């Protein structure tokens, strides 16, 4: 705003204008280009291990780099299991906070809570990991396990689920809520009768986005999950492993085919998270649009 440009009434020549439009379109297209390149270049690097293992890459439970055997199933399981624990912990808490901020707290009380959430979201993942491995896992009898990883992941996805839920909940028409209250409902009845049914779709989307984040979160999980091979178990206190954690922990020593196998894990992770995010983003956007329409 400092310098006032002298406005040229004739305007720059037409081609400059079109070039600028093309330039910005190119920048926007970069998003699609990067996503496409990720899929292509990484799949190509992963081909050797897919060639070696075939579909057994996804079904075998044995992961033994010295023998060139790479079965990713335990890590796929670990990713799903820790993400599920994280979501189970994070969803009720996030929903509680989001409802508190939108339905109970006054704006002057809600604002510091937004700051609190921003702070929580701003703590780097590796710092949570450090705290998880040196404090949390030793404080309680958690050790390094699926559960410890799930707890840390839950802390990390609470801010995003909360802020999305808040946005979705805010689209509930005021008339609906006032109508319910005018009938003599209590605040909780008003919430279950108007707010929750109205936001259900968007809330599902928000939870799925949180799930996607939990599956891809690497460093914190790598530090606290315990790095045990081949554990497919429902025991939450058992040490385990997940796809991103394996990649981060084994990359340093990996050679040739092992590296290719780790890249194949990343491709798998990419495919799963893209799928979850596609569906979730679609759901959230649709429910937001509907909220604005009425």
């Amino acid at each position: 705003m400092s310098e006032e440009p002298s406005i040229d009434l004739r305007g720059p020549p037409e081609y400059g204008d079109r070039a600028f439009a093309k330039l910005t379109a190119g920048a926007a297209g970069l998003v699609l280009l990067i996503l496409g390149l990720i899929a292509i270049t990484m799949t190509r690097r992963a081909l050797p291990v897919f060639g070696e293992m075939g579909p057994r890459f996804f079904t075998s439970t044995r992961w033994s780099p010295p023998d060139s055997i790479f079965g990713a199933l335990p890590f796929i399981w670990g990713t799903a299991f820790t993400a599920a624990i994280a979501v189970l912990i994070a969803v009720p808490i996030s929903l509680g906070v989001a409802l508190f901020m939108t339905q109970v707290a006054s704006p002057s009380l809600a604002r510091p809570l937004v700051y609190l959430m921003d702070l929580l979201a701003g703590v780097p993942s590796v710092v949570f990991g450090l705290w998880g491995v040196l404090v949390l896992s030793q404080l309680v009898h958690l050790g390094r396990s699926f559960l410890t990883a799930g707890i840390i992941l839950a802390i990390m996805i609470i801010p995003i689920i909360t802020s999305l839920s808040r946005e979705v909940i805010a689209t509930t028409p005021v008339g609906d809520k006032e109508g319910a209250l005018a009938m003599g409902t209590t605040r909780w009845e008003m919430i279950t009768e108007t707010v929750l049914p109205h936001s259900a779709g968007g809330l599902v989307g928000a939870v799925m986005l949180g799930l996607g984040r939990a599956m891809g979160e690497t460093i914190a999980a790598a530090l606290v999950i315990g790095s045990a091979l081949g554990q497919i178990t429902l025991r939450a206190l058992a040490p385990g492993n997940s796809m991103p954690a394996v990649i981060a922990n084994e990359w340093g020593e990996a050679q040739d085919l092992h590296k290719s196998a780790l890249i194949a894990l990343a491709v798998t992770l990419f495919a799963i998270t893209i799928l979850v995010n596609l569906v979730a983003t679609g759901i959230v956007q649709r429910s937001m649009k509907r909220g604005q329409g009425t």
Partner: protein
Amino acid sequence: MSAANFTTEIVVPPDLTAKRSWRSVKSAMMTGLMIASVLIVALPLVAVVWAIFSRGLGVAFHGFPAFFVDEIPVIARRPGPGMGPAIVGTLLATGAATLISVPLGVAGAVYLHEYGVTNRFARVVRFMSNVMTGVPSIVMGLFIYVTWTLRFGYSAFGGALALACLMLPVVIGATEQMLRLVPNHLREASYAVGTSKSRTILSVVLPAAMPGIISGSLLAVARAAGETAPLLFATGAATEYNPNLFVEANTALSLQIFGNATSSFVAAQDRAWGAALTLVLLTFVITLVARFVTARFARRR
């Protein structure tokens, strides 16, 4: 059905004839649960901040400024400072990532909001940009390893590329939101005096949205500064100062925390806490600047 008399339709009416007292108690209990969840959320934040300060302060400020300027000990169990090269590495990678991603992200958002608006390409890009914010950071790191590091070797710049990929959709999203806030009459006034569209965007729309774009970008920068996974594959490892962005392996605060966190040596763990404190202070300063810029923006409006 007690709702039968009402013209407004409530799908499943609660039993309003039930005793009011029990229903109020239930509502109060649920409100209590909501307050409890707020307290539960505050708990880990307080615990983490407490741990960082109680364990990191002594390490980071012992013999100030040794921790912030000395090189990293090559032998992990040796006690003492420092994290100087890691601070430089973090600033280099994050700074370069910002220089790459912010102009591109702003340009992309300009296309989405000023040119494409609702055409199919813009809609697809907007949607995929949202999806891209959910791509795991470790995937971005390996992507840059495959496309860049394998050819050009480890460097802070490789890490910067991976961070830029992560920041791009965030900057696009934040900028588009800010462009939406620029009132249309500004654009129309500019067109009315014969200004071209590109000129209008560059000298009217973007300046008006600038503070919001800056604060949105700074938040993305703060997040990027704390990222570890993207650097893991592209930056390599170093213990000495490497001020050159493009050649030779480098290091970063986040990489040092990751490496030292699982060390069994207390000296290494101490350095991890010191590095964590440094990193958190760094991101805190960036976030604070972002808030300050936003506040000034809000006042001016």
